[in-house]
């Protein structure tokens, strides 16, 4: 049996798959001790540990440690003269007209930052060598008090030559073996010192938290006699055995959204959809991600709490649009939805917990696209009158009736989601019409088809058990790690030989690192070159498969780069400008073994009835049914509302749908 356990903020989800049989469980999370939620989900699903051969876990432990500022006290060592690196940041402001602007707060205090005399240049040569004696003095003075839980080191230009960082790290590890030490070249080897330093300090900050969390969980599993595979989800969409995560804790940031994306990738992939856009809409926010050929794009430019993170993560765009997003009107009279949310408490007015502000969920209830009796499998009742009351003043202001008002607000909410999708599609030079939309999360399937319509996407695929898709994504994820190497090469002459050689060396090293984690079979490699025109500073990824790497020559390389540059920037000419490779990224992955489909588990009684909805100015009759009542092969035409355990799927007029043999609900635009 293989088990995925995803600890979220509110719920802990479990998916277990045993010879094609799917078990799901959902238990409340215990935010103070997430491991308890994880273990209690096993109990809830009545799973014995000796039945499990593969256990994969994802949690928000790293993310919460940063958001709640509950990480370790970190001592930070920098090149002499650059003590204020983390406070100076990039000297800009995110809101240009805000007089009271405050910079994001670093996770390391100024008084915990120590300067070390050394300097390396951009080509890696040493200007000022690291004097181990004086370094030792600084280290002893700083760490002797023993009040630091972790150490971060970031020296200038260490991306080109990490020798000094390594020497200092070794010194500290010898003298203070109990302290976690992270140096920047271990975390990322990209230039730009502020971004690399922040990534390094964030990693150091969460390292002890992740380590003790994993240890505790591991101990409890050991105590229960579990001896098999145990791995942890990463934000790059792959998993790693626990030993691999402990060295590089920052990669577990945002693992939850990444797991959801991988679950969607796998489940849609089984039905043959490999070019997809995921739409994960929950209570407060929406995550969208574009996947080409079954592989999500990676981004090294995310941030958390305003602090940059430069390790590769799945390229997910997040906006503040969810079921709880507040509908309001600004002082210029414009209708707005979000980004403020009513949160879980009090929640939308219809929850009846004292909320009086209208939220997206209220609008659905008033418009009829949510039916109180079918909300979360009928486990929670919604107060229609409270939704109406919450929307009434807005309706008056816009001179609309309540249904029109609700409809208008949902159009604005849809437009916000459309823009998030444009961020990861059109803005990256991808045409959304070439993709299918895969919604999940509580509110995703309610909005997906209208969003698809706006983007001229013709197909929407709703996976079964969308509420536990993240936990399924854990099981579906490959073992995966990325290594990067900064090395400048002008694209000319025999550069392709150098490229093959460098990737060859990287492959050997990656295979060794995987072997240490016990992963030796069916390894798959991806080769990505970060390239740019000489003089530019931001690179464009060019990915090569094995065959492309074998046949690579200068012309092909230039052609591939210019094509990618055109796709994003709509200009560029290799005839006039030289092109360079800036860095190499190698991905190594190993499949977790065959993954069965996430077939539907029905906990809801089947029903089928008629209802009324108001959409785009018209009131119409609409089929309302449970997902379980829609047998495979049956074709439904919109308007229809299909409710399952965790969400409601809205199929508007002009669209039709049916379940395929993998229990995916395929919704298509009428011809």
């Amino acid at each position, binding site marked *: 049996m293989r088990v995925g356990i995803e600890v979220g903020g509110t719920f802990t989800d479990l998916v277990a798959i045993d010879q094609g049989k799917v078990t799901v469980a959902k238990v409340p999370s215990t935010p103070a001790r997430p491991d308890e939620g994880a273990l209690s989900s096993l109990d809830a699903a009545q799973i014995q540990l000796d039945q499990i051969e593969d256990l994969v876990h994802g949690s928000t432990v790293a993310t919460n440690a940063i958001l709640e500022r509950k990480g370790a006290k970190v001592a930070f060592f920098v090149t002499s*003269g*650059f*003590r*204020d*690196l983390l*406070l*100076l940041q*990039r*000297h*800009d*402001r995110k*809101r*240009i*007209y*805000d*007089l*009271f*602007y*405050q*910079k994001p707060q670093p996770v390391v*205090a*100024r*008084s915990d930052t120590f300067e070390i005399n050394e*300097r390396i*240049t*951009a080509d890696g040569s040493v*200007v000022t060598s690291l004097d181990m004696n004086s370094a030792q003095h600084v280290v002893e003075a700083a760490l002797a008090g023993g009040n630091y839980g972790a150490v971060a080191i970031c020296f*200038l*230009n260490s*991306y080109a030559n990490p020798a000094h960082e390594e020497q200092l790290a070794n010194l500290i590890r010898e003298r203070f073996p109990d302290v976690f030490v992270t140096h920047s070249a271990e975390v990322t080897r990209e*230039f*730009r*010192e*502020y971004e690399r330093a922040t990534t390094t300090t964030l990693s150091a900050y969460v390292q002890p938290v992740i380590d003790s969390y994993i240890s505790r969980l591991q101990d409890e599993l050991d105590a229960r006699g579990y001896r098999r595979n145990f791995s942890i989800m990463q934000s790059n969409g792959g998993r790693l055995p626990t030993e691999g995560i402990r060295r590089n804790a920052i990669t577990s940031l945002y693992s939850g959204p990444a797991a959801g994306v991988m679950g969607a990738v796998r489940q849609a992939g089984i039905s043959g959809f490999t070019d997809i856009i995921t739409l994960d809409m929950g209570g407060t926010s929406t995550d969208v991600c574009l996947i080409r050929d079954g592989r999500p794009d990676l981004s090294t430019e995310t941030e958390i709490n305003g602090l940059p993170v430069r390790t590769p993560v799945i390229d997910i765009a997040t906006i503040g649009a969810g079921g709880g997003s507040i509908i309001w009107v*600004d*002082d*210029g*009279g*414009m*209708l*707005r939805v979000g980004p403020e949310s009513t949160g879980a408490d009090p929640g939308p007015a219809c929850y009846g917990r004292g909320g009086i502000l209208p939220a997206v969920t209220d609008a659905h209830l008033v418009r009829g696209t949510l039916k109180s009796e079918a909300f979360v499998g009928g486990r929670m009742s919604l107060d229609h009158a409270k939704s109406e009351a919450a929307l009434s003043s807005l309706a008056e202001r816009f001179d609309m009736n309540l249904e029109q008002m609700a409809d*208008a607000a949902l*159009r*604005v909410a849809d*437009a*916000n989601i459309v*823009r998030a999708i*444009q961020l990861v599609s*059109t*803005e990256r030079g991808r045409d959304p019409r070439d993709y299918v939309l895969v919604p999940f999360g509580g509110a995703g399937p309610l909005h997906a088809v209208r969003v698809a319509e706006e983007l001229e996407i013709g197909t929407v695929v709703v996976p079964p058990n969308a509420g536990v898709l993240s936990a399924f994504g854990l099981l579906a994820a490959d073992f995966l790690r990325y290594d990067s190497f900064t090395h400048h090469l002008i694209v000319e002459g025999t550069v392709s030989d150098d490229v093959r050689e460098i990737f060859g060396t990287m492959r050997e090293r990656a295979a060794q690192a995987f072997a240490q984690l016990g992963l030796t079979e069916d390894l798959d490699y991806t080769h990505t070159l970060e390239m740019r*025109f000489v*003089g*530019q*500073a*931001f690179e464009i990824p060019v990915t090569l498969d094995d065959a492309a790497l074998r046949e690579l020559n200068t012309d092909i390389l230039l052609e591939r780069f210019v094509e990618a540059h055109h796709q*994003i*920037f*709509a*200009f*560029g000419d290799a005839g006039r400008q030289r092109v360079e490779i800036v860095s190499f990224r190698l991905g190594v992955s190993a499949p977790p073994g065959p993954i069965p489909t996430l077939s539907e588990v029905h906990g809801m009684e089947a029903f089928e009835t008629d209802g009324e909805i108001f959409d785009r100015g018209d009131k119409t009759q609409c089929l309302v049914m449970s997902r379980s009542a829609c047998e495979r092969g049956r074709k439904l035409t919109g308007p229809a509302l299909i409710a399952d355990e965790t969400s409601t799927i809205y199929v508007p007029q002009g669209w039709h749908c049916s379940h395929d043999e993998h229990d995916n609900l395929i919704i298509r635009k009428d011809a």
Partner: protein
Amino acid sequence: MNVDPIDQAVISQGLIASAREMGVKLIRSAYSTILREASDGSAALLDRKGNVVAQAELIPMQLGPLGATFKPCAEIVPPDDLEEGDFYINNSPFEGGQHLPDVFIFSPIFYEGTLVGFSASVAHHLDLGGGAPGMNPDATDVHQEGIIIPPSRYNMQRDWNGGSFERLITANIRVPELTIGDFNAQFAANAIGGERVKQLCARYGVETILSVMESHLAYSERRMRAAISEIPDGVYEGEDAVDDDGIHTEPLLIKATVTVAGDDISVDFTGSASQVLLNLNCPFASTVSAALAAVKAVASSPDIPFNQGLAAPITVTAPYGSLLNPKPPVPVRARMIPAFRAFDAVVKALAKAVPDKVIATGFDTTHSICMSQLVDGNYSIYLEIYGGGYGAGPGSDGTDGVDGPLSNCSNIPVESLDQQYNFFRVTEYALRPDSGGRGKFRGGNGLLRKFEILSDDVTMAHYSDRYRVAPEGAFGGEPGDHARTRVVRMNGNEEAVASKTSIKLNRGDVVISETGGGGGYGDPSERSTDRLHDDLESGLVTPPAAQAAE
């Protein structure tokens, strides 16, 4: 055509998103460090008449008067005479431009033959010729500052990409491979903006888009007027001063009279100093931009989208021949400095009306350092601008080490400088403890950068301010510290560097440049013990300075 309010909400956000994407792509595809790392560029979408409809929030100074920069172009060639592939271009300070390095390019957007609007971008170019690489602080007229591109119309296919206009520009600049690359980044950003607007036209129809543009201006105007009407009516005055004119030592007074009447505001700079011989003159478009930014920042929430509508309730005047509305052909390169003082004077005036909405005066100076070298016939030019401390506010300390409110340049990573330049090395980059003015809320601290010069025959050009006139505190807060720069020569001799000058440097020299702090807000004796504790713990206030405050 009347637009449905919901269409308006949906489509106007689409226009803003398009402008934002233009800005991102301008920076990301650029070549020079001043554009690609420091982000000294901006982008916007304009309607057919040249009104800014939506902008990428990059540099307030460049964005404010885009319409004024556009207008002289449209007078030369009416928009209706434009063809696909045409563009307007302008950097002329006395014809709607600001200073020469900021080149404005406007590309018409046609949808099925109809002119819908313009996509516009502006970038600060590293070098556009003139009397010295990067900048010429000794210039006594605008001609010595670089090539003037008067308001003109050219065509991409005919005049660029090897065409005669591109060749003319290339021949007049010192680092064409970077600068032409940056021009291309501007054209690309404009093309992206055009593409997005055309997609919106295809989706919603041209007529709807045109109406949305119009009512989006009205929307911002409505919100701005609502914000202004909350300011008590009255006539308010504020003053600040530029240190000197670069030759003499007398300060140059900047005086703002702000009149609030209902939902209108007028800003008049009568009483300000006359224009000067060197480059501290501020073209009128820059003055307007500074005044708009001050009123917007104080009066309104940051959430109001900046466009031409927002400018409608605000009138700006300055006497012709004054520092803030100079006559040609005076040099204007350092126009940000008087522009900042105009900003400060307006904020100080408004402080008398709405004390809770202002901050104390900040360092608010473009502290600009340009170093260059000619080796084997090739120029290497480094240009970077530094901010300092922000003024403190009624509820928060001023931000430390950040670019001033009219600008928003990033720093250039030291690792990027190490890759790009081999004639100097940055050996220290730090905050300056105790440089922020004390107060109930402390002014932001300035910063320090130390450069070690690695080869002979390097020219350093510098302009800055607040070497003499400190930024004032507000409501009992103390002033921020001054800025200063010095050179320690290889032989150990130390020389002070003036705030507006150019000097020669050789191997072994060390330049130490410090920017000023911001003013404090409120009486220092009212500072909370928590904040005093944090000050000492962080080391941003040192014990002797803390004791002096008690």
